């Protein structure tokens, strides 16, 4: 694959490789306090520009706020108060980047510290009020319910389970960054992003600019995203503003130290659910609550987290009723956002642990309980998701033998099974522009922002197939608001499903146009010079699914976990690049397992970080994380054009739940009481 060869040969361009003549550097002064009044700010003596909220009063947009009880948008630069450690307070622009930190040191801020909180329990007790408009610290409280609620009365057993999922630092290996410059007409931004259109919209709203005057483009390479690189961040807004003030390019590259305490963190939720069932293991429904610690502000889509998780809960089971409370609370921690899987792994963990506990309580085989309750294709969940041909029963059938085999082979280990329906976010679609230039076809999918998924190759392969031309004659342009009229982004396992839909539409239009012009395709490609068409796709969300089986042994003395065996079978939809599918699933599993074994961004009860380095957050090394999963798949074409699904998150969805349950059971086997939290060891 050419894309991979480019990387090993060093032909790459990450955000910090972009160097514009005359560029200046942005450095940000951050709050050392979790909660404080900002009494006075004294500027440094040097620097090209010094900014506080006095000059730049702007707020980061919060999405999905309909029906939300309280909305507290995060100021770009603190207005009167700071509410988490790391929050931007002031900004300085410097000529020489090596002097940035020294110049920052010259600025002085007078703070008056206030009491602060960090946990969901503290928030609900109301120990401290984070925002005056939300005296109960609740931002969002919703009831997610559906089906026949009377059905709960038929239950013969009710089994409760609770889980606490740790706050994690997304830690893409390349931190965030941007370069902004204003040419007098248009504000140009290079951003290490998964979603250029989203960044454009965010910056436009924050600064009150029309989006048409902003152009956002990702560099050729983005060094990982994991949900962290979807929205715009305060620093992007500051860089944009400063570049307009200075009329010079402004660059901001996040340091790892900044990344550790910057929005957005992932996960951080508590769930307590009751599963209602009959004695024979037939599940009737689920009740309970899901509470997400969204941190100090409504940022990006963190108001959606609890509701989305609740809506996905029990998706692959044919149950009758769902009645869940979905809550998002404020604390003095950095705002959270989607982190690899964005709700899917959280839901799978809650759901699968509940099913496991039910089987345990009833003395039934946990795999059989899953088989008994598995929804068939076409099931519509009580919360309204249409599963379509997600393949649940086929997946269980495929995994059954492996399960029987490993339970025999590893009698001392914990065997964790995760069965899930994997949501693929297609809505609201993508657009694609095709243009003939120099006898080649340029395919623009501006919304797709790859960050390690070989999308350039995938779309090149698909386009060449659809157009009946060689791959060399296809040039793919991604992650650029100029490459197609509109777009959404690469997250929610959506790029190929949504992108292919748009590409199919554009190809059809191109074919129609060439016919109209009396050209014969592809023979007359050079005569079609300059021809341009725009396609789009606005299809429905789709579901894949998976069964993951983790076999974990704990060292009886040190409790060090060892993955003895790992099996994953996922419905991956039609396949374009098989190696890439495997790689995505393998890496995804590692990230899920890693949270169970190691990862937590620990804070004290007042919201001071207890971690100083990337290592302190539990980021595993090659010696810590040894897992060689056996990856299997079934191919059931999705209803979307091309029949594709997405595989960026399915590994994590299965990995988190399977490893968690495996550790739980291994603990039980050792006669120890499980922790009911991640990390689980």
């Amino acid at each position: 694959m050419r894309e991979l060869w480019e990387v090993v040969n060093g032909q790459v361009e990450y955000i910090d490789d972009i160097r514009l003549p005359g560029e200046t550097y942005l450095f940000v002064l951050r709050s050392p306090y979790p909660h404080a009044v900002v009494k006075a700010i004294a500027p440094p003596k040097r620097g090209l520009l010094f900014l506080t909220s006095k000059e730049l009063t702007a707020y980061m947009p919060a999405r999905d706020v309909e029906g939300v009880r309280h909305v507290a948008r995060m100021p770009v630069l603190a207005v009167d108060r700071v509410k988490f450690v790391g929050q931007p307070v002031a900004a300085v622009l410097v000529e020489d980047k090596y002097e940035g930190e020294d110049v920052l040191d010259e600025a002085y801020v007078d703070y008056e510290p206030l009491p602060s909180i960090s946990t969901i329990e503290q928030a609900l007790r109301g120990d401290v009020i984070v925002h005056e408009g939300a005296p109960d610290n609740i931002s969002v409280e919703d009831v997610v319910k559906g089906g026949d609620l009377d059905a709960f009365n038929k239950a013969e057993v009710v089994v409760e389970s609770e889980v606490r999922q740790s706050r994690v630092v997304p830690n893409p290996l390349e931190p965030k960054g941007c370069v902004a410059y204003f040419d007098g007409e248009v504000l140009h931004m290079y951003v290490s992003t998964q979603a250029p259109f989203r960044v454009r919209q965010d910056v436009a709203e924050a600064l009150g600019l029309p989006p048409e005057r902003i152009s956002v483009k990702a560099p050729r390479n983005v060094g990982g995203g994991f949900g962290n690189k979807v929205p715009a961040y305060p620093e992007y807004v500051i860089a944009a503003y400063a570049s307009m003030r200075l009329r010079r390019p402004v660059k901001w590259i996040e340091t790892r130290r900044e990344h550790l305490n910057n929005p957005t963190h992932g996960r951080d939720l508590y769930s307590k659910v009751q599963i209602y069932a009959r004695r024979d293991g037939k599940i009737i429904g689920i009740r309970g609550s899901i509470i997400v610690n969204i941190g100090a502000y409504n940022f990006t889509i963190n108001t959606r987290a609890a509701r989305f998780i609740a809506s996905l809960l029990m998706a692959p089971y044919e149950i009758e009723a769902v009645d869940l409370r979905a809550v998002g609370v404020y604390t003095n921690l950095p705002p959270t956002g989607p982190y690899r899987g964005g709700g899917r792994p959280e839901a799978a963990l809650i759901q699968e642990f509940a099913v496991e506990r039910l089987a345990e309580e009833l003395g039934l085989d946990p795999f059989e309980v899953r088989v008994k309750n598995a929804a068939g294709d076409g099931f519509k969940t009580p919360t309204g998701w249409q599963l379509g041909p997600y393949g649940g029963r086929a997946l269980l059938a495929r995994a059954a033998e492996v399960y029987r085999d490993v339970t025999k082979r590893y009698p001392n280990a914990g065997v964790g099974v995760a069965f899930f329906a994997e949501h693929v976010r297609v809505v609201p679609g993508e657009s694609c522009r095709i243009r003939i230039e120099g006898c080649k076809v340029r395919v623009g999918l501006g919304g797709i922002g790859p960050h390690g998924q070989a999308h350039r190759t995938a779309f090149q392969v698909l386009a060449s197939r659809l157009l009946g031309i060689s791959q060399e004659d296809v040039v793919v342009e991604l992650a650029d608001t100029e490459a197609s009229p509109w777009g959404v982004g690469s997250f929610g396992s959506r790029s190929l499903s949504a992108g292919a839909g748009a590409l199919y539409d554009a190809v059809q239009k191109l074919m129609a146009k060439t016919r109209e012009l009396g050209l014969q395709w592809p023979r007359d490609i050079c005569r079609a010079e300059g021809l341009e068409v725009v396609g789009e796709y606005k299809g429905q969300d789709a579901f894949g699914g998976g069964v993951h089986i983790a076999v974990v042994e704990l060292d009886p003395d040190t409790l060090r976990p060892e993955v003895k065996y790992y099996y994953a079978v996922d419905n991956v939809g039609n396949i374009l690049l098989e190696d890439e599918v495997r790689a995505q699933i393998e890496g995804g599993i590692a990230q899920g397992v890693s949270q169970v074994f190691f990862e937590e961004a620990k804070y004290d009860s007042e919201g001071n970080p207890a971690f100083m380095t990337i290592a302190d957050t539990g980021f595993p090394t090659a010696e810590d994380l040894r897992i060689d999963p056996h990856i299997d798949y079934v191919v059931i074409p999705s209803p979307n054009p091309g029949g594709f699904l997405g595989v960026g998150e399915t590994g994590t969805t299965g990995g988190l739940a399977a490893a968690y349950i495996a550790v739980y059971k291994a603990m039980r086997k050792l006669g120890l009481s499980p922790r009911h939290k991640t990390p689980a060891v």
Partner: protein
Amino acid sequence: MEIRLKVNGRSYVFDVPPRMLLAHLLRDRLGIRSVRIGCDTGHCGACTVLLNGEPVKSCNVFAFMADGGEVVTLEGLNDRLAAALKRAFVEEHALQCGYCTSGMIVSLYGLLKDGRQTSEGEIRRAIRGNLCRCTGYTSIVRAAVRAQRYVSS
């Protein structure tokens, strides 16, 4: 201060401030992109280069400390072992976002350059200072094993 440095086979004389890190010298003065910054605490290994033949984290070394030395980055690795590693990385799909890749390859080059057969444990030890968020490491270990096969065959 003035330092002399050989980088990827070419000799340079630089005037550097005492605080300048080798990583910054390589990136900012020579435009070497394979040297990447992923942290500020010497943990991630994205900046790994060979200094006098041994893998080091170039963000952990002041430029003046390398005075008189020889630096090789991914761009300067052109022998049979390097070719084997690169090919094996592609074939085993041992990279996704690619940010860790050059550091990984340099560290593994340092491990395998003597031609000794190494175990999986040794491979994992050699890259424990190179973090990867995307792959879960196993494909990287497989690539190292495969590269050894290529050079020994």
